[in-house]
């Protein structure tokens, strides 16, 4: 299922989350920690997806997790952590999720994937989405996969960190949906590499071509 050629593999799903109801996350071992500065009086932190912003990738329209520039007060800096339950990862453990923002009109949203040895608090950034120096944050649900494992099996903390520098002018909103962590037991991805795949866009293009052919 992941990365194609499923028939050759026996993937083990370590974690799968559709964000149907984010109030259940803490009970399932997740940590939602808004460390933005300055703190805000009315602070939504991570919140259930808003259908008026955009619909979830799958499930009910609000079935995704979201954060926004209002995580910090006006002119502050957002650093809002979404930490997965502690997992034991191996050399080929792949984190996959989908994310999107609302519009390209308000850049400045950044999401990083960071991994630390369990409980160490020393995080290494493995992936940056919306890096101002490279690609803009995607404005439609876009799939990201990253190998979160090391050379030997280890317990790790995996975090998705939403950040905005100076909310007076930067940032808007992001959503995250359909997250999974899978041990891939064969078909090894490039060690330490990460992939960004614009699956939705590709899929659309393929369908169009096929329809055109069928129409002939």
């Amino acid at each position: 299922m992941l990365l194609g050629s499923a028939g050759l593999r026996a993937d083990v799903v370590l974690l799968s989350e559709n964000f149907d109801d984010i109030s259940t996350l803490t009970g399932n071992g997740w940590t939602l920690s808004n460390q933005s500065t300055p703190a805000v009086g009315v602070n939504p932190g991570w919140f259930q997806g808003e259908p008026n912003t955009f619909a979830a990738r799958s499930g009910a329209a609000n079935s995704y997790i979201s954060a926004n520039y209002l995580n910090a007060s006006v002119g502050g800096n957002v650093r809002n952590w979404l930490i997965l339950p502690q997992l034991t990862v191996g050399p080929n453990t792949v984190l996959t999720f989908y994310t999107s923002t609302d519009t390209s009109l308000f850049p400045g949203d950044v999401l990083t994937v960071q991994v630390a040895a369990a409980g160490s608090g020393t995080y290494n950034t493995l992936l940056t989405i919306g890096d101002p120096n490279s690609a803009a944050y995607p404005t439609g649900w876009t799939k990201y996969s990253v190998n979160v494992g090391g050379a030997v099996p280890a317990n790790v903390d995996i975090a998705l960190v939403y950040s905005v520098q100076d909310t007076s002018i930067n940032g808007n909103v992001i959503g995250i949906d359909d997250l999974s962590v899978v041990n891939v037991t064969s078909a090894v991805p490039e060690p330490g590499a990460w992939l960004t795949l614009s699956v939705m866009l590709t899929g659309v293009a393929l369908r169009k071509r096929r329809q055109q052919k069928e129409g002939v």
Partner: protein
Amino acid sequence: MRNKAPLACVALLCAGSAVTANAAATIVIAVADGPNVGFNDPTPVSPVGGNSGRTLGEQRLKVFQEAARIWGQALTSRVPIIVSAGWQAQSCTANSAVLGSAGAVAVFRDFAGAPVRGTWYPVALANALAGVDLMPSLNPANAPDITARFNVNLGKPGCLTGMPFYLGLDSNEGSSAVDLLAVLLHELGHGLGFQTFTNPQTGAPLNNLPSVWDHYLTDASLNRTWAQMTNAQRVASATRTTQLVWGGTQVNDAARSILTAGAPALTVSAPANVVGSYQVGTATFGPALFSPGIANRQIMPVVDQPNGTGLACTALSAANVAAVSGKIALVDKGTCANTVKAANVQAAGAVAMIVVDTLDTLPPATLTGTDASIRIPSVNIALSDGNKLKTALASRTRTSSNVVATVGIDLTRRRGMDTAGRILMYAPNPVQPGSSVSHFDVTATPNLLMEPAINRDLGSSVTLPQDLTYTLLREIGWR
């Protein structure tokens, strides 16, 4: 059983005149004024509006006799109703005044003929239900059932300056006088039973028993009558504007036949935790609210202050324009005129404006000001309602929100009634002792006799189709 209500009965100085002509109940006026005061004021006056009295005191008494006649005609009682009436100084300023006050002198429970056991009834009603005078021994000649006092200084400098009582009998008081006849009818209404004897400030019922009023006074948010609540629940209920209603079907059926359909409202339809009809103050500028109004639009706040509030006192920034364009703009009160805020959000493309008040007063104040260029409707909401919406708005984006609302006339309501068709009772926040919960709400349209303030357009009727006072008294037991 008998219990003195906490209302003073001053010594009677002079016996009054009985009104009996065509009356189904007899109301006797016991004049409580000394020589040359109040009803005995000898100041010569000219006839006015059908009142032929030749002195100020005579004219005042004729108005009182007319009020007694009107109530006597509406009510039925074999026991004369004795009203101790007098004139004295009442609290006032140049711009506001207590016009008068009245109440039952005593309350009774569990008398022969009492409709509800363990419940206080005002003495005049208790007498009518029992068919006998339940307290004949105090002063057989004229023990008063109702005491009523009126403001002797009204219209003098410092006391609603220039607005004296109008002493005509034709409800033609004009714009610079207060119709005494309406005031008398109102105060007699209280004395006859249009009041609770439960304290709205402490929630404490009189001697731990409910008043007959409390079996009908209902909190819609709790779905309970005052008789069914704890003291703490009653205290909270007393200030729950738009939730405190009359639970009796007679009044509510009648109210539906006379109150105007459609009430100004901010109706929030999403998200679920803030859904509801919010009470609004309307604006003196911009178009009048209409139905359905600015319907099902997203609310977006203006943010132009470091603390996250938005005053909209200057032209909106590009970010704020992007936020409110095509939306209902939410701004905070203060610093500049409401018309300036309206002009700025209108220029940014907003389709309506909600002002969040700095006060929690309910109903929210009217937004004042004049600016003929304003083409969008504006409403004022209470601070706590605004904060509730802002909390829901915290999950917005820079250009859209999940808070969807309609600013307009809510046709599912009548003016002064809730969506379930119950008439609203007066429950201002903060509580107003002596006024709270014992009046109809001020939003009733057309105006009713038993609102907490006497409106200029009242006639002299206490019955349908003009008024609901007698209907309510019937509901608690009067015939």
